[in-house]
């Protein structure tokens, strides 16, 4: 008797998130590519997923015993990873950001962060990457939650090359790390950039307005800086790849230099980069003009990522408009 759906050979749909198609994997699934390579060299590395094994096809083929599928049980996966970390392993949990971080916030805090355990949460499809699937699938509060946790490290790669860099360079960090990946980034880096832990990269020098982005916001900042330059406005552009610890010195330097700071992120305006910058300039007694390109603290619309980004002004044009307003040239 057939009691459930059977998998039979059949034509396949395009799996937009998997690393099966090797020719496109680096663009669509850089974390999956990176972890398989890293595990070749480091026997401590394990991967865990809660029904997201398709993003680890390469890893599973190369290291079948070092992959744990936990089924649709995200909270369990975090605590299981904590146990493995006490045995000397470096577990990487691959999860969809809204479920891997927000559903598991207490396990991340109590089991990983309080105990300083080297577990890595690779949160894929962050921000509005799954915008079409409904608000349950939006991850727009994840940075706020993760960065509130003592001992957490939060990194947000701007593109595929940044994913490779940030994953490789943090492999031996002693505490937990949230690696926030929003798919669909336009390339920012031609090769994996060199990050110093906790420091931001300055991508463009200018003195009139600061554009600080993380994740998808970096590409927008770079494009906007080009358009601003064409209008005679020189922007100081940063990749805020480390949101915890963040680069306080960079914020103070750029704020003093330009006196006008715009943050750009596909995250709620509450608790993310906008808050980090506002808290920092306030704490340092700097009198600067601030604005942000971020998602409003209200019920969000549902649609494709591109449509939602347009709707909320999370575009290069949106950045240019706010930057000009901030410099008094709108």
């Amino acid at each position, binding site marked *: 008797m057939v009691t459930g759906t059977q998998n039979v050979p059949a034509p396949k749909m395009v799996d937009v998130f998997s690393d099966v198609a090797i020719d496109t994997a680096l663009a669509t699934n850089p974390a999956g590519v990176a972890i398989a390579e890293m595990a070749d060299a480091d026997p401590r590395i*394990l991967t865990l997923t809660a029904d997201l094994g398709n993003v680890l096809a390469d890893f599973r083929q190369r290291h079948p*015993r*070092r992959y*744990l599928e*936990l*089924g649709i*049980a995200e*909270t*369990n996966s*975090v*605590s*299981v*990873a*904590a*146990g*493995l*970390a*006490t*045995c*000397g*392993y470096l*577990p990487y949990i691959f999860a969809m950001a809204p479920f891997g971080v927000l559903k598991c916030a*207490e*396990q991340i805090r*109590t*089991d990983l962060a*309080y*105990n*300083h355990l080297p577990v890595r949460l690779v949160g894929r499809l962050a921000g509005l990457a799954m915008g079409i699937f409904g608000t349950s699938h939006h991850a727009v509060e994840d940075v706020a939650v993760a960065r509130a946790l003592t001992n957490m490290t939060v990194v947000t790669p701007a593109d595929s090359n940044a994913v490779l860099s940030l994953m490789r360079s943090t492999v031996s960090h002693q505490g937990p790390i949230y690696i926030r990946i929003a798919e669909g980034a336009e390339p920012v880096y031609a090769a994996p950039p060199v990050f110093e832990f906790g420091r931001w990269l300055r991508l463009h020098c200018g003195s009139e307005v600061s554009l600080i982005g993380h994740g998808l916001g970096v590409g927008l900042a770079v494009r906007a800086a080009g358009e601003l330059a064409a209008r005679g406005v020189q922007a100081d552009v940063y990749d805020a790849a480390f949101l915890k610890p963040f680069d306080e010195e960079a914020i103070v330097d750029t704020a003093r230099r330009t006196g006008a700071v715009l943050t750009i992120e596909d995250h709620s305006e509450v608790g993310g980069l906008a808050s980090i910058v506002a808290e920092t300039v306030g704490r340092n007694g700097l009198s600067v003009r601030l604005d942000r390109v971020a998602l409003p603290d209200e019920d969000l619309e549902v649609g494709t990522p591109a449509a939602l980004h347009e709707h909320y002004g999370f575009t290069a044009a949106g950045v240019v408009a706010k930057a000009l307003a901030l410099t008094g040239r709108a």
Partner: protein
Amino acid sequence: MSVDAPPPVSSHSEATLDRGRAVTPAELRWRADWIRLQTVQLIDQAGVGHYSSTFSCAEIIAVLYYHTLRLRPAEPQWPDRDRFLLGKGHVATGLWPVLADLGYFSAEWLTQFGKIGSPLNDHPNMRLAPGIDFSSGSLGHNLSVAVGIAYGGRLSGRDYRTFVLTGDGELQEGQVWEAAMAASHYRLGNLVAIVDANGFSGAGPTSAAMNIEPLGARFEAFGWRVAEIDGHDVVALTRTLDELPDPASERPICVIARTRKGKGVAMMEQAPQAWHLGLLEPKLREQVVAEISGRMRRW
């Protein structure tokens, strides 16, 4: 940390404590009552604590630490040690005196319990206290953590066992059953859950709040091997734990230890709920100490 860490002083501290160490039932009964007395003392220092939940598992802790677990107190991170996770972390007052006695840290540390800077908290913190294999306090997490540790044993080829002591109320947490599924899926016969089934949770009888019975059938349905015993019978406990299948076996084991909340103090056994969390006033404290110590002289 304001408490200095002097070298361990116990005579036990140099050696590996092997599994199945020789100990008489009378010694284990005495040790369980000693745990109860020490708990009264620690709660008195802190000003608040969980008496009756600790008393229900005193025999379980005594048997594990003085007979069953393979330990090396002078080397708390010894990779081959058996692991013990206190899922019901609110009974750490019953564990601290034991760890001090075995030489994990000086008995002096106990005098700092309840004070700022003490490495011994009301719920155990693995970063502060030697001998704690994982922190606890938030119910429902430790069985999952133990699945990870047991899987780690499989990966590394080590034959340690991983024990978790849970409360029966704790089994209402959904994550416990996610862990129970994973344990049998990954054939973790090196994992042992001991349920201190005292029948009460914080606000009343466990199954009145949310029925969790039949516990044995539920664990069996999740693929576990189940033993159900009297959790105050030290002979039954030692025999059950002596007869555990080899750690290389393929079914996780659940020992349902039927216990009485407040065991060993008559007034607490009669009204266990009244003594879940609080502080004994001095006169009652004297009565409780007299009752327990009177029995200890007879063991």
